[in-house]
């Protein structure tokens, strides 16, 4: 009988909100969202150019002071308010609703170009089923007397990427034509995204088991294979040898901070959407720490096979260079075959230089230096589509490796796309624009269809230049601004005391000092510094791009060109659009309040509380 007197039960009201099948699905979705293409092709590059193992120091410091606190903040916010980004920020304060709208706009912009990168991956994937791989041989020219000129002057992999895949134009102002093969692949990619997100997290939750776990399997396979390749140890030693002098360069610290920030996919609204489908009494603190650490560990884990393969490629290129020199010498001096081997090459060269210097000079031998080959560092699409594909040709069984590699990249990108699409989808479901009776399938179909149509611009000849612009401007500065306002909004508008209470209600533990200090002071300060440094660096660098122009006299080097003014205007627009949502929405609300009478509730932050959202009494705003 006494049991009847217990206080109102803490079982949350069944509000019909979809939820995760189990905790593991939720964690896996967050990890899949965070772990993306950047872990494979940006982190190893940064490690390499910023002093190898020494880069880990600023990286982990940034993780500790910036990554984990911001991640915890977003997850806690979404879990507490149980709404997508727009609804959540509207709830915190109508004046901060712009933060949610900004996140939503960024998610849209990023989804558009991110899926086009996946299109390229898919194109390479379906071309990997051929024997020989199409990027391993140059096609013949028109009258079959030699190889195609563009291919011959650069390399077969470059030719396949720039000509056969992108069909790139020499200038961003030249649009070129729509590439039908890319359109087909783009349609397929959007169809796959639609298939997986058709009912929101019901379907992504199932798909994530495959797309989040499969890349780890492939990375392990590549790790084992990569370590057995000749030259792998050179690559790894080169990657991990710490060079502490680089830490004096502030650029390194900036890169570490931005890498952590973008790698965890903060400020997209996707994480808020994911955690909003959680049960309210969920330990978001542990989740945040788990996701952040798994993300960083994955970056480290991925750099090992990447660098083994790069070391293998550098060693093979070095051996090729030596072999070519040896062949020239043998042919020139009519020495018996195999009289000069790689091992005694240097002693032979010194001997011949002393005895017949003019002949050696006449041969114009290239100097072969392993360090030089290792120093050729690439990141981004260049790493995956040019450098790695070249390395794959050299491995035995290249079709299998190519297929595995591109499926892995596709899964990595797809799981990040789920987060992006959720960041777009969830707020739309909650806005009053969409009526309750429209099925989710229709809404997700409309989103995918509209995105596909807009993304057709990226399949033009100049498409990859535009993707670089989107990546550089839409996917960077606005996120920093939004994250800054997120922290300030929660800590100073919603008030950290209230938020601490909410988090304590959710996790069952009091917020410890680490969270208090980082949320209140360190993270906002760090974000401000990073933002200013980042903008300053972008302004210092002239807005130029590297164009692939076969008619350039320095071909196959890329031609540095400056963006024309109208393109620069678009860049500024892309960066400013999500950021201006914040003041615009605040202004809009201010005007709305001024119009209404003064006694209506100004900001519901005082009234609203996390526990209140999850108990039986209705939310005052609804």
């Amino acid at each position, binding site marked *: 009988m006494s049991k009847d007197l217990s206080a109102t039960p803490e079982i949350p009201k069944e509000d019909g909100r979809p939820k995760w099948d189990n905790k593991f699905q939720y964690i896996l979705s967050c990890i899949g969202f965070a772990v993306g293409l950047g872990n494979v092709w940006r982190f190893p590059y940064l490690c390499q150019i910023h002093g190898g193992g020494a880069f880990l120091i600023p990286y982990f410091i940034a993780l500790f002071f910036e990554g984990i606190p911001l991640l915890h903040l977003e997850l806690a916010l979404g879990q507490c308010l149980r709404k997508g980004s727009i609804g959540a920020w509207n709830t915190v304060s109508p004046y901060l609703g712009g933060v949610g709208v900004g996140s939503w706009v960024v998610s849209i912009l990023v989804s558009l170009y991110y899926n086009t990168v996946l299109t390229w991956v898919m194109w390479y994937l379906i071309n990997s089923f051929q024997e020989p791989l199409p990027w391993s041989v140059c096609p013949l020219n028109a009258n079959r007397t030699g190889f195609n000129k563009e291919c011959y002057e650069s390399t077969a992999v470059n030719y396949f990427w720039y000509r056969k895949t992108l069909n790139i134009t020499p200038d961003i102002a030249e649009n070129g034509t729509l590439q039908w093969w890319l359109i087909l692949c783009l349609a397929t990619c959007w169809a796959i995204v639609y*298939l997986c997100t058709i009912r929101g997290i019901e379907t992504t939750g199932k798909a994530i088991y495959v797309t989040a776990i499969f890349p780890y399997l492939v990375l392990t396979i590549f790790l084992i294979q990569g370590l057995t390749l000749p030259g792998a140890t050179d690559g790894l030693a080169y990657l991990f040898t710490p060079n502490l002098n680089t830490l004096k360069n502030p650029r390194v610290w900036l890169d570490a901070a931005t890498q952590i920030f973008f790698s965890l996919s903060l400020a997209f609204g996707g994480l808020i959407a994911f955690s909003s489908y959680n049960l309210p009494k969920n330990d978001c603190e542990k989740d945040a720490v788990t996701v952040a650490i798994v993300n960083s560990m994955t970056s480290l884990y991925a750099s090992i096979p990447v660098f083994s393969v790069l070391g293998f490629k550098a060693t093979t290129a070095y051996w090729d260079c030596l072999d070519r020199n040896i062949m020239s010498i043998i042919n020139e001096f*009519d020495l018996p075959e195999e009289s000069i081997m790689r091992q005694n090459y240097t002693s032979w060269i010194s001997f011949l230089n002393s005895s017949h210097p003019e002949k050696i000079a006449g041969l114009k031998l290239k100097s072969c230096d392993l360090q030089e080959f290792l120093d050729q560092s690439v990141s981004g699409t260049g790493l995956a589509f040019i450098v790695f594909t070249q390395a794959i040709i050299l491995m035995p069984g290249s079709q299998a490796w190519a297929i595995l590699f591109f499926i892995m990249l596709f899964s990595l990108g797809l799981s990040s796309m789920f987060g992006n699409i959720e960041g777009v989808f969830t707020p739309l479901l909650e806005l009053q624009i969409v009526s309750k009776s429209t099925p989710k399938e229709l809404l997700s179909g409309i989103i995918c269809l509209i995105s596909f149509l807009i993304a057709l611009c990226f399949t033009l000849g100049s498409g990859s230049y535009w993707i670089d612009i989107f990546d550089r401007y839409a996917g960077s500065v606005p996120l920093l601004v939004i994250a800054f306002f997120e922290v300030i909004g929660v800590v100073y508008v919603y008030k950290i005391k209230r938020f601490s209470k909410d988090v304590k209600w959710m996790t069952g533990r009091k917020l410890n000092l680490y969270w208090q200090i980082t949320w209140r002071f360190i993270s906002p300060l760090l974000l401000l510094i990073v933002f200013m440094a980042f903008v300053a660096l972008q302004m210092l660098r002239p807005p130029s791009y590297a164009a692939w122009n076969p008619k350039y006299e320095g071909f196959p080097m890329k031609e540095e060109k400056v963006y024309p003014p109208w393109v620069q205007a678009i860049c500024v627009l892309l960066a400013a659009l999500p950021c201006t949502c914040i003041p615009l929405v605040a202004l809009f609300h201010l005007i709305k309040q001024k119009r209404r009478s003064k006694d209506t509730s100004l900001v519901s932050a005082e009234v609203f509380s996390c526990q209140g959202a999850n108990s039986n009494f209705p939310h005052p705003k609804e």
Partner: protein
Amino acid sequence: MASEHGLGKELDTRAGGSHPCGGAGWGSARARTSRSLPAPLIATAAAPSGTPRPARLGRARRPRCPETDAQNAFKVRISIKTALGDNAYAWDANEEYLFKAMVAFAMRRYSSKSTTQISNVLLCNVTDRVSFWFVVTDSSKNVTTVPGSVVEAAIRMNRNRINSAFLLSDKTLQFLKITSTLSPPVEPSTPVWLIVFGVVLCLIVAGIVFLIVSGIQKHKKKNKESTERENLEEKVEVTVTLENGLPCEVLDLKAGHINGVFPADDERFTSL
């Protein structure tokens, strides 16, 4: 005894291929050593690790090529070890005989007159690299050499046969002035990627259709269930008891009987 100067001269003249063979007056081969090189050593196939000991840098063996007819002579370079690895055979006089026979065969096939004999093909300046020069003479026309263009055409026509006689390829049996025609790459009738793409697309479309149809069916079922439940609730509502105008479920029926301020009665008494 050849001087260093002589050795250098010999190497210089062979470089660039301007003049096939060394200066006049070297009727017989002599053992050559150079003052700058280490004391006579036998050239070995692979130099011992570390110091190179090329006692004879590409010394040419007999016979020497004649001075004239540079444009009708062709240099051949053979890389047996590269092609065959462990199964490499040594290049000796028998192989040279076979080569002469193949060239004569090529000439016969090309010009369809059976006048070229093996003795018409002259090899000279055979080096350890295995490279040498050859000319084809025409015994019917006063020991003149056959024009280079004819020889080139003959070799081109029969390149395959010559290569296979030596188990070599275009790259390992090089005629330095004769370029090989490139074979066209194999192109399948339908591009393979279209097939793969078609398969993938069909699977995806099937998945989407399945999910949409199942969604519609679930929706319909839910609608049917909810209308059924509504009908049921309407019936039930009639029998709901009312007390003071409020349905009973809302009321906490025990509220009036036990005072929640005091601890529950059970606790005042020690349990049995």
